[in-house]
């Protein structure tokens, strides 16, 4: 229960003043009329205060406490004292990172009301706080009120939106063969039998299932399960300078959504995925597989806050021990305000990593702030960015220049190409 604040309103002051002034006038003029007016004002004042609502509890119910970006959550607030005669003004504090989709988180409850509902639109990932509830209790005539903060805040976890990947297999260059590979329940180049299908002219003869062919009198071949062979590392730029544009849509959020979507695809194919996030610090998650890794990645991405100015070079130097040899690496960054990018990518490629850089263009987001006008500084920065991308391609990295007008699915398609 928070600290309680008591206040009179101007209306209350008016009533009191009228009452006092009428009383003084009654004394001066010996007027019963003024005395009656004074007493009536005072009586009204006292009567209204006597019907002041008691302290009450407000409970919050959320439809769900974990959602993905873009989903809606219904929130219900219930008042314990349902027979109150005064007025209740309830404001459920909602994180400024959340949007109200339907209804309002502010309500004035007339006498006898039980509560109200509103719907939140979870537009952006994060651990968002809802509450505590701000309660203002009024007497029936709105003369006097008390304010207090009640109830405990609730947490709404919003994971980054996961876009569906393209059907099929993501062919990664460096497949890692080793004992104990995981079998995938789909067709691939493994050794375990999966199913039988019709022969095609490109099928090798040693895959023909002769028994089935004899039985059915047409050529049939065996299919085998695919096997997981790859560790994939994501390096995510979460510096403050990468959050340009709007809070809702900026390079950091794009990179996070891309990372969530692609890592989901990779984990679904039983690859192992690791994640490095750099900004104010360097957070490393070693490559892991399965749903546990998926949850861990989602939580890391959800908890990420754009801050700090650690460079890519420094974060790679720090996390080199965690990078599996020759593993493919996805660098997700706007590539702005960082002079170490070129050398850091060179270093990774030199160590045998296949580097894919997915780069939402920061200056394009910034141009949006200027209503997409082409300004001189933009041209200069654009030249510098083009030079950098050419340079990175020249050293052997695959660079995807992500225009803000394209969505995450487009970026994933580019990766699949």
């Amino acid at each position, binding site marked *: 229960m928070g600290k309680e604040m008591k*206040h*009179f*309103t*101007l209306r209350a*002051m008016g009533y009191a*003043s009228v009452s*006092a*002034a009428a009383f*003084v006038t009654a*004394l*001066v003029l*010996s007027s019963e009329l003024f005395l009656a007016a004074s007493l009536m004002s005072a009586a009204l004042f006292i009567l209204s205060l006597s019907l002041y609502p008691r302290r009450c509890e407000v409970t919050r119910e959320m439809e769900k406490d974990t959602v993905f970006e873009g989903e809606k959550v219904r929130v219900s607030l219930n008042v314990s004292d349902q027979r109150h005669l005064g007025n209740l003004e309830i*404001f459920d*504090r*909602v994180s*400024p*990172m*959340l*949007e*109200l989709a339907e209804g*309002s*988180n*502010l309500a004035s409850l007339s006498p006898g009301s039980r509560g109200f509902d509103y719907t939140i639109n979870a537009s*952006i990932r994060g651990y968002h706080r809802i509450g505590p509830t*701000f309660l*203002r209790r009024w007497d029936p005539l709105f003369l006097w*009120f008390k*304010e207090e903060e009640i109830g405990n805040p609730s947490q709404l976890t919003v994971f980054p939106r996961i876009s569906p990947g393209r059907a099929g297999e993501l062919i990664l260059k460096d497949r890692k063969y080793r004992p104990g590979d995981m079998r995938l329940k789909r067709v691939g180049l493994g050794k375990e039998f999966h199913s039988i299908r019709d022969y095609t002219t490109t099928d090798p003869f040693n895959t023909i299932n002769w028994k089935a062919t004899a039985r059915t009198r047409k050529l049939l071949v065996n299919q085998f399960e695919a096997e997981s062979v790859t560790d994939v590392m994501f390096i995510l730029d979460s510096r403050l*300078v*990468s*959050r*340009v*544009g*709007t*809070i*809702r849509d*900026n390079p950091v959020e794009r990179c996070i959504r891309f990372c969530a979507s692609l890592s989901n695809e990779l984990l679904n194919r039983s690859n192992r995925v690791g994640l490095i996030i750099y900004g104010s610090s360097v957070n490393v998650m070693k490559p892991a597989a399965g749903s546990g890794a998926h949850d861990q990645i989602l939580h890391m991405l959800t908890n990420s806050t754009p801050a700090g100015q650690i460079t890519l070079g420094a974060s790679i130097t720090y996390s080199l021990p965690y990078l599996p040899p020759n593993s493919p690496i996805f660098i997700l960054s706007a590539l*702005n*305000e960082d002079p170490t990018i070129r050398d850091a990518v060179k270093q990774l490629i030199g160590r045998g990593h296949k580097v894919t850089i997915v780069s939402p263009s*920061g*200056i394009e987001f*910034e*141009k949006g*702030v*200027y209503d997409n006008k082409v*300004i*001189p*500084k*933009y*041209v*200069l*920065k*654009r*030249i*510098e960015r*083009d*030079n950098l991308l*050419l*340079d990175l391609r*020249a050293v052997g990295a695959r660079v995807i220049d992500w225009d803000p007008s394209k969505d995450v699915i487009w970026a994933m398609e580019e990766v699949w190409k």
Partner: protein
Amino acid sequence: MRRIGASTIWKWTFLLMFLLFISTEIYVVTSMEDEGELSSLENGWTGASAFSDELSRRGFDVRSLLTTPSLLHEEEDPGNTLLISLGPQREYSLSELHALRKFHSRGGRILMADDSGNGNGLASRFEVNFVRGQLYDQNFVSSPDLVKFDVNQDFFDGTVLMNRPASLSFSSGQALIASTTSAWVDRNGNGINDNISTNQGEAPGIRYLAVISDPDFTEHGSGAAVFIADPSLFMNGMIELEGNMEFAVSLVEHLLPRGGKVIFDDSVHRSPDASGIVQRSLRGLAFATTDVNLKIVSGAMAVLALLSAAYLYEPPGKPGHDCILNRTGVAELVEPELLEGDLAELRKAVLDRIRVSYGMSVDDFSALSWNELEELVGSPGIYRFLRKGKYRGGVEELLLEVMAWERK
């Protein structure tokens, strides 16, 4: 600047009003001495209860005013009302004098007896003055302090006995009681008739002991004020001597020929019994509600408090949801225009573009001569900018040329 809360203003206003009330009380209560002397409620030797009782017995409606003569504003029938003020122990306030004058102008009758000078505030408004100093005359009884005076008026013909009387001077009205020609006033209070030569008022002569301001008030139907230079005439211990009682009653009957209401102004005395407590407790309130000055002060304070409250009052804020998702931020395009320092950056960017376009390393590119660079660039305008840092036209034209540049 930090704003003062409305509640603070109210607290201070009420505190000030309370202090004002208390100070008024203290002033009123402490400004009086000689408890109960000449009060109509006092039964002792110095009281005036005998006179009051006699008037009641004669059929007058006798009242006692405990709070303030300002209440005379509310007197509904002043033409049949007499205010008697005997030996006031304090001076009247301006608002009280205003009320008394107003009472008189509405036809009210006033009888004031004083020997201390406290009544001069009222008397001067009728061009009468109480002269300080005891009057001595040849017709005294057993002591020069007790002086007898003959009264020859229509309403009374006889003698009255006064104890250490003062005297009156007047420039308007008519004398009711006068001394003999040998009377003198002891102005310096030494009990000796001296300073005659210096003419300081102690010279023998006729002195006046009672004056009426409007002798023809019955014909005109106007108000009247009678001033008597000795209040002790009405004391319980003196009223029964000589013709004092008859004179006093006759005077009242003369002032109120049709009978009516007689109000003893006991607000100028400290009441001795339980009524005194009531008097003291009510006087501040009565002052606050009847005194013109206090009314102005109280009203002004109330208006000030209301205005302050209205000015300082901040309505309860309407809480609202503040969504920040559309807030924007920039990093590289904080300054949209190219500044002088940006030209060096542009030059480096152009060189980089050329180098990368030709797939050269930094070392190889650095080893190029100016002629070789000119050949690679192809554009004279860009080359001039790279070599000399100069360009024709505006910087926008240069940027367009750089954007359009391609490897030969």
